């Protein structure tokens, strides 16, 4: 939270109100944040309390009820195992969100460190960026497919692959912001006042480079969920009996025309989750970056 506070400290605040309360008040007044946050919260609650909420066990086979269309019993229909798609989707959120969050942590930490070091200490820039270039040159999807297809798909492999794949872009975005911010007057002023590199980097530059990073991390979270779906679709996602959004879609791909609900509903859920995340990021961004606040 400290970086957010520093950020807000740059502008004239009304007296007698703590920066944190002000921040919360602005967030709650931001429509994108509220809608996105609610969508995300719903999915989060469903995922956490999946065992209590889901009407069926996610792995309960019943081949006599295979590929049933949506009904009062199976609201989203059944897959070709006769499993309830709604229940699988609720449970699927659990693993998909875990993967997304892990990837965000990975890329957030490494991307920021590398990007900031590279943008601020220009001597490091060349080496770091060349390594990032090399990593980036492996298309993220190919890298993930290679790791998952050949080493066997496991949750750790998927997180590692997506984490490595998303870090260079994050680093580049942080670096680009740092490049711009470090030339601004207030940084020069701090430098002239004899502030240390670390203080300048973390207190002034990074704090002001936060907005693009947060947009990026939202995008990483969302794209990790999309990428997991893609891996499962290609047949290299987390193995059974794990239910993930992509795994459910993959189960229905061979019956797209005859049983569209198997692919349609989980796809829509992915759409909603990712949409929620993106709105959430938008809201945070609007509130965090005071310059564009009207």
């Amino acid at each position, binding site marked *: 939270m400290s970086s957010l506070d520093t950020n807000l400290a740059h502008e004239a605040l009304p007296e007698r109100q703590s920066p944190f309360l002000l921040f919360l008040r602005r967030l709650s007044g931001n429509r994108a944040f509220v809608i996105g946050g609610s969508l995300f919260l719903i999915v989060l609650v469903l995922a956490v309390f999946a065992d209590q909420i889901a009407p069926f066990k996610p*792995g309960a*086979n019943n*081949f006599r009820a*295979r*590929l049933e269309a949506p009904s009062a019993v199976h609201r989203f229909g059944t897959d*070709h*195992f*006769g499993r309830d798609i709604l229940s699988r989707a609720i449970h699927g959120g659990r693993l998909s969100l875990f993967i997304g969050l892990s990837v965000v942590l990975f890329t957030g930490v490494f991307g920021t460190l590398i990007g900031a070091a590279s943008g601020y200490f220009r001597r490091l820039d060349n080496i770091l960026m060349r390594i990032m270039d090399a990593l980036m040159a492996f298309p993220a999807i190919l890298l993930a497919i290679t790791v998952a*297809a*050949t*080493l*066997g*798909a496991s949750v750790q492999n998927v997180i590692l692959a997506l984490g490595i794949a998303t870090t260079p872009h994050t680093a580049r975005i942080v670096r680009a912001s740092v490049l711009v911010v470090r030339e601004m007057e207030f940084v020069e002023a701090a430098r002239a006042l004899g502030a240390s590199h670390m203080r300048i980097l973390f207190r002034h530059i990074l704090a002001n480079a936060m907005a693009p990073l947060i947009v990026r991390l939202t995008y990483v979270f969302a794209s990790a969920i999309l990428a997991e779906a893609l891996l499962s679709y290609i*047949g*290299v996602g987390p*193995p*059974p*009996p794990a239910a993930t959004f992509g795994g459910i879609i993959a*189960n229905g*791909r*061979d*019956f*797209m*025309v*005859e*049983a569209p609900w198997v692919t349609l509903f989980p796809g829509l859920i992915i759409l909603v989750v990712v949409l929620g995340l993106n709105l959430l990021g938008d809201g945070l961004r609007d509130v965090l970056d005071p310059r564009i606040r009207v």
Partner: protein
Amino acid sequence: MRPSLKALAFAFGLMTALVGVTPAVEAAGGEIVIASVQGPPSLDAHVTNAQVARNITLHIYETLYARNENAEPVPDLAEGVSVSDDGLTYTFKLRQGVKFHNGKEMTSADVVASIERYRKIGVSPALVAAIDTVSAVSPYEVAIKLKVKQSVFLDNISSPRAPIAIYPTEEAAKGANEIQYIGTGPFKFVEYKPDSHVTLEKFADYVPNPAYQKRDGLAGKKEVLIDRVTFRFIPEAGARTAALESGAVQIVETVDGPTAERLRKDSKYVVHDVLPFAFQVIKFNHAQAPSDDVNFRKAVQAALDMQEVMEISYSGINQVDGGWVFPKSAFANDAGLDQYNVADFEKAKAFLSKSSYKGETVTFITDNLRPNVDIATVVQARLAEIGVKVDIKVADWPTTSKIGFTKTGWNFWTHGFGIEPFEGPGTVMSAFVGGNAQMVADPEIDRIAKEFYATLDDAQKKELFKQFQQRMYDNMVAIKAGNYGLFQVTSDKVKDFVPFRIPRMWGVTLAP
């Protein structure tokens, strides 16, 4: 006077008949496009036994003997064979006037060179392992001398698995996967665009085998009535069906159950059931605990409901059948079948308690083909009911087969057994000889197989095969879950198509 009703009907009938016949003549020619799932690793028939390759190569190349509609070996490039009294020398008389696609006539030199090449680099060396020497007796006679008597030699020489295709001498001199695709088959190779298509065209100088009146399996009269055939590779099931429904392709090599059900209701398509096409097998690794324990293996068998297993993975196109040959085979018997498809958790738990299983996690490996993953998933759920924890490892085929060919890293492995049962009981048995599939040799199976290959007596072969099947269950060497099939779908424009393992494009016509 009114014309008689009968005469009118006759005249009308004649007219319809004429009208019906005329277009069939005009219809000769045209291009048929077949939608396949994936492309072949190679079109050099000697170096691959992948099914995707043989679907195409068996249109380009031919073998001395080939399998007929009932999978029995019958002459194809050969006119016939004479076997010496000691059963060691096979003299093949070749058909005369058979042309290669390069215009050259096939003679004994080509046959000798091709078989020698196969002995050197062929990927199913077991097929030619019994051969001692191959020699040309005359331009149209080839003698093959065996080291030991082999009851299945003609089965081997006619095998479509990795066919012992006859190439021209010059090509037979080239290394693995380096040849020009020249054969004697009814179609000749035009182009291969990987990940896109293979195109073949009618071989104009092809002379159908005069010994036959009609199509017969991979032998018989191969008369080509179309100009070209293109195999188009479309990995996505939905896209394959869409291509058929939009008229871009005329034949789909395989569709899933629900799609077949839908297309069957539409008069524009004909759905052909190719059943049985293959066994679905769940292999055990006998070299690794706990699947080294026969009681553990029996517990697994007892827990499974084969109708559930087969119906989920191959809906609408499966047979719940535990025999280690196809049901219509002369070798079909019921030895050991009382132990198949028990679906009894209490029995399974009883076996389990007699076994060395201590609650550890067992590993089920599978490639990422949907039906195979489905089977692993169903087995996992069933075994959870008796307290066996199963970890499924899904990877692509090279990784999975690499693990499955070794003694560690797996307990179960499921896949199809397609060509083995088609070739016959000898090939099915050979998969378990020397512990090839199960990683630890089973002396009883090795003994039975050895006697089976050495005898020429049919009654004795049947008795030995019965013993084999009994042993498969008594020692629960591997589980046969059932038979599955393929739905081949043709558009109503494709006439005279007769379904077979390999979608044969000879004898087929295309309506305009």
